[in-house]
């Protein structure tokens, strides 16, 4: 699949934003935001919504006919993309009320915190289901995709929460331990995903053409220059290059940020390095998302001559 840069930016930044908001809501419910002042909590909430908004704005960039984007709220009952649009917009007034509840210390603050957290997670889930619901791409059509998308959001939001917490001088070692644990779990999930993806499975050129008992080779694709289908689905990266990028991605997204958080946890380096850990993790997640697209092989490629997906 062609990795559209706007979609990479969208899923990574809005993911971190939703993750941060989920941590803020969880902090209200579990009590670990009590060390923060009202203004500090509102700053964290604003940061989350700015990240989410940058992502959503970026997502509209890949539309070829954006003047009809407003119609995307209309098919909530069937389309995951429509559900994503509805939940993403619904979160704004709820998050606004949550901010008001923080500011004026309303008694119903826990309900609004919980609701914001749930909406953030539900929006993440709807985004991931856009990909996971496609039967045409076996690399995406797996429950691991929503699980991973939510995990990425929680670790990128979590490290950002730690960084901001450290900036305010209220860094809590217990929270660092929890985030480090989540990073390890996410890494394990990703490795399981890579293992599964490597297994040959799914449709082949035989089932695509109906000649299940013979070898089938493409003689002529029927066009002399690349088509929309080639550009959208024919994205090809050399296998050794992909392997190299997988290793780099694993180091940059998981290992280096994990090591930095651990060093801060152990007091080896200053807590200000948590911000650096977050930036490195975000760069790694961008590469992860690029790989997510570059490694996805749509079944249309079988008609273009590929033997299997």
């Amino acid at each position, binding site marked *: *699949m062609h990795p559209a840069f706007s979609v990479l930016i969208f899923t990574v930044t809005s993911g971190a934003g939703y993750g941060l908001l989920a941590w803020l809501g969880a902090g209200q419910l579990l009590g670990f935001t009590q060390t923060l002042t009202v203004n500090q909590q509102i700053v964290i909430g604003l940061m989350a919504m700015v990240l989410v908004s940058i992502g959503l704005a970026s997502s509209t960039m*890949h*539309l*070829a*006919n*954006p*003047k*009809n*984007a407003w*119609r*995307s*709220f*209309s*098919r909530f009952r*069937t*389309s*995951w*993309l*429509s559900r994503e*649009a509805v939940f993403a917009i619904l979160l704004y007034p709820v998050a606004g009320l949550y901010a008001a509840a923080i500011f004026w210390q309303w008694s119903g603050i826990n309900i609004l915190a919980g609701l914001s957290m749930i909406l953030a997670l539900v929006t993440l889930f709807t985004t991931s289901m*856009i990909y996971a*619901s*496609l*039967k*045409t*791409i076996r690399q995406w059509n797996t429950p691991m995709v929503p699980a991973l998308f939510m995990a990425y959001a929680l670790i990128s939001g979590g490290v950002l929460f730690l960084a901001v917490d450290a900036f305010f001088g209220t860094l809590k070692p217990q929270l660092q331990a929890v985030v480090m644990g989540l990073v390890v779990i996410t890494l394990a999930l990703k490795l399981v995903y890579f293992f599964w993806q490597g297994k040959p499975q799914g*449709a082949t050129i035989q*089932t*695509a*053409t*109906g*000649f299940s008992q*013979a*070898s*089938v*080779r*493409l*003689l*002529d*694709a*029927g*066009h*002399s*220059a*690349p*088509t*929309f*289908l080639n550009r*959208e*689905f024919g994205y090809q990266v050399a296998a050794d290059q992909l392997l190299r990028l997988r290793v780099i991605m694993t180091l940059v997204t998981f290992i280096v940020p994990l090591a930095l958080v651990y060093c801060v946890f152990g007091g080896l380096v200053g807590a200000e390095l948590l911000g650096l850990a977050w930036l490195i993790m975000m760069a790694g997640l961008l590469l992860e998302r690029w790989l997510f697209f570059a490694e996805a092989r*749509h*079944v*249309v490629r*079988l*008609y*273009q001559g590929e033997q299997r997906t």
Partner: protein
Amino acid sequence: MKLGLVVDLDTCVGCHACATACKQWNTSGTIGPLSDERPHGKDPSGSWLNRIHSYEVGDSPHSKTVNIPMSCMHCETADCVTVCPTGASYKREEDGIVLIDQDKCMGCNLCSWACPYGARELDPNSGTMKKCTLCVDRIYDEQLPEAERQPACVLTCPTSSRVFGDFDDPDSEVSRLTRERAGQQLMPELGYNPVNTYLPPRIPKQQDSMSVSPMQGVRQLVNRIINR
């Protein structure tokens, strides 16, 4: 009704006439022009609703060239319709034709991702998705003589390897051909239930040319011509 096409892979010669007839008819049809990029340049590109791929099936010397024209299969389980967030993509209840409302499409490409057959292409000019309409603006046009109320690709096919009809009617030609020639769906394991059906090439009668001497062969041929 369940309208769709039967394509005979035995007689299709891969001439691309169906694709050009389709482009010619539909570029002035209900979905607006099918625009092109650099039509006279080195690498012309553009939206087509029908494309033909040619394959070598089997291994030489027992191989065979098979041409597979592909357009929208008007699937019964059309994921392209369910993924559409704007409601632009829809399947007609009365005849099962899958269409795109050009006034609603926002060009997000998701329906083309959901289609396993590559039936949907983004129009580079309008930024909306285009696909086979089964010539919905021909097949119901009462101004046309009845014989011409068929998709452009079917009318133009020089080997009559494309047949249009109602798969819900067991006596229609498409149903009969599917039954008699063991018509099959492409990539059925994905579960889209495509309506369009492909007739596999007929298996040629096995002839052992070595057991017949050349003269016998000529005699048989002459006898056959005389007896006609």
